[in-house]
């Protein structure tokens, strides 16, 4: 792996070396390294580009790293990764994509991740997207995540796209069974001429299912963001969606929360707020000795933390 690839890997997965446990590292369209463990099997997906990850029932406290790195300009790929998580598991999956564009050719990675989570399991999914390089080529990522959460299971998604991705359309669909729940924390920052769309559709199909979808985003310069969150309460359930956005410069943000109760015992809440950084926040930090720019940076980094 060269230095550019290593840097991307560090940014998206915090990896300095080959990780412990199961992993699949993909660079420039090819598998760079792969490792299965006793409980986690990673095999190529038949019929399309991608991998299948099978996690045996009862697997606890294990992690899977599946980073993707694109350092050659002009690459366009669509990858399908399927996750089968058995019953009674407790696992962390660290995904992420880093694109470096050093020329005027665009690079694109579209990752379609499908999760089938069994009963009584707990899954944490961490995903970071990052772009670097000073080429004029666009860095494009379109992730799609499809999740089916089984009875009594819990899925936590922690996603972040903080820098360097020019165009992204992110789609997440979740179906929740009885007593199943999902929590999503999405953090997004766009700048320059970047565009980002994020759409969530959560079907609360099972009795006592729950969803909490939280998005925090900052749009700077001339960038554009769209956040859509659809919660369908089809049973006795509870759902909450919240979008908090800070707008800087000439950026534009649209937020479209949509909640539908198809059952009288569905309790659904949506909250959405878009606004500039409050002037008094900047003043407070200036009274602590920060400059206006430092104050703004501090407020944004705290907000996206």
């Amino acid at each position, binding site marked *: 792996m060269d230095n550019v690839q290593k840097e991307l890997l560090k940014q998206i997965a915090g990896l300095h070396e080959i990780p412990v446990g199961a992993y699949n590292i993909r660079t420039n369209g090819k598998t760079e390294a792969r490792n299965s463990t006793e409980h986690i099997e990673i095999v190529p997906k038949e019929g399309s580009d991608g991998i299948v990850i099978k996690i045996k029932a009862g697997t606890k406290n294990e992690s899977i790293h599946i980073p993707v790195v694109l350092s050659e300009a002009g690459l366009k790929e669509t990858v399908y990764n399927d996750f089968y998580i058995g019953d009674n598991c407790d696992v962390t999956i660290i995904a992420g994509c880093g694109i470096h564009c050093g020329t005027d050719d665009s690079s694109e990675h579209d990752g379609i991740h499908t999760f089938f989570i069994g009963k009584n399991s707990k899954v944490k999914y961490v995903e970071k997207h990052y772009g670097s390089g000073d080429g004029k080529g666009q860095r494009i990522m379109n992730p799609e995540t499809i999740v089916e959460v089984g009875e009594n299971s819990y899925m936590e998604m922690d996603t972040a796209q903080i820098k360097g991705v020019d165009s992204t359309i992110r789609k997440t669909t979740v179906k929740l069974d009885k007593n199943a729940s999902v929590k999503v924390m999405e953090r997004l920052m766009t700048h320059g001429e970047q565009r980002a769309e994020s759409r969530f559709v959560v079907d609360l199909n099972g009795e006592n299912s729950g969803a909490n979808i939280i998005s*925090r985003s900052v749009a700077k310069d001339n960038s554009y963001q769209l956040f859509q969150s659809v919660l369908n309460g089809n049973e006795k359930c509870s759902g909450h969606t919240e979008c*908090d956005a800070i707008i800087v410069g000439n950026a534009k943000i649209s937020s479209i929360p949509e909640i539908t109760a198809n059952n009288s015992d569905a309790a659904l809440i949506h909250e959405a707020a878009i606004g500039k950084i*409050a002037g*008094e*926040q900047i*003043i*407070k*930090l*200036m*009274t*602590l*000795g*920060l*400059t*206006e720019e430092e104050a703004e940076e*501090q*407020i944004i*980094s*705290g*907000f*996206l*933390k």
Partner: protein
Amino acid sequence: MLELRNVSFRVAEGSKDEEKGILENVSFTLEDNKFVAITGPNGGGKSTLAKIIAGIEKPTQGQILLDGEDITDWSITERAKHGISYAFQQPVRFKGVTVFDLINLAAGKEISLSGACQYLSEVGLCAKDYINREVNASLSGGEMKRIEIATVMARGTKLSVFDEPEAGIDLWSFQNLIQVFEKMHKEKKGSILIISHQERILNTADEILVIADGKLVKRGSKEDVLPALLDAAQADTGCEMWQKGVQR
């Protein structure tokens, strides 16, 4: 030493070219390591005066000097860096910024967790319950006020301005708060300018300034000023208006 020379602050009022005077020719000197309280009726200009010292508002007339240097045109940041601290009357909330982050920013250097906790303990907050909490809407007004005071203490500058630190603090915590200010005064770590309506805080002060209707109407030791403030019957008739603003 902080010196205000003929400071006035006027704002435009209404659609015509009319002006309203918030402060008129206020002059005073705050000596090093002195504890001075400002009191007077609501709407008299006290908070504006504090903001003018912190640099949040610019006076329309007059000068502000810090250790002999004219700082009238200095920004908030420059004043903060030169040793002026200001505790907001209504502390600001931040999403994502923790109490620890804020104390660290205030200290201006990396401080240890135990160091930060000490400031919280001093303002009567159980440090371990608060240190990792976000300074957001989940904190009550009284909690915010105490964290605000802790940030000013963490700065440890030569001049600290507090705008009604007691407002919103419950009766049980008030005693503790008084001790905080008494300790600050005793340790003489810098000058303190405190806007307050509380007799016990006024009692701690070396000197009391009374501001009413934008003017400095009285200045003196607590022995000179307090009795008149506390006993409306003996007060000068001209001062009746501002006496109403004093809580006992």
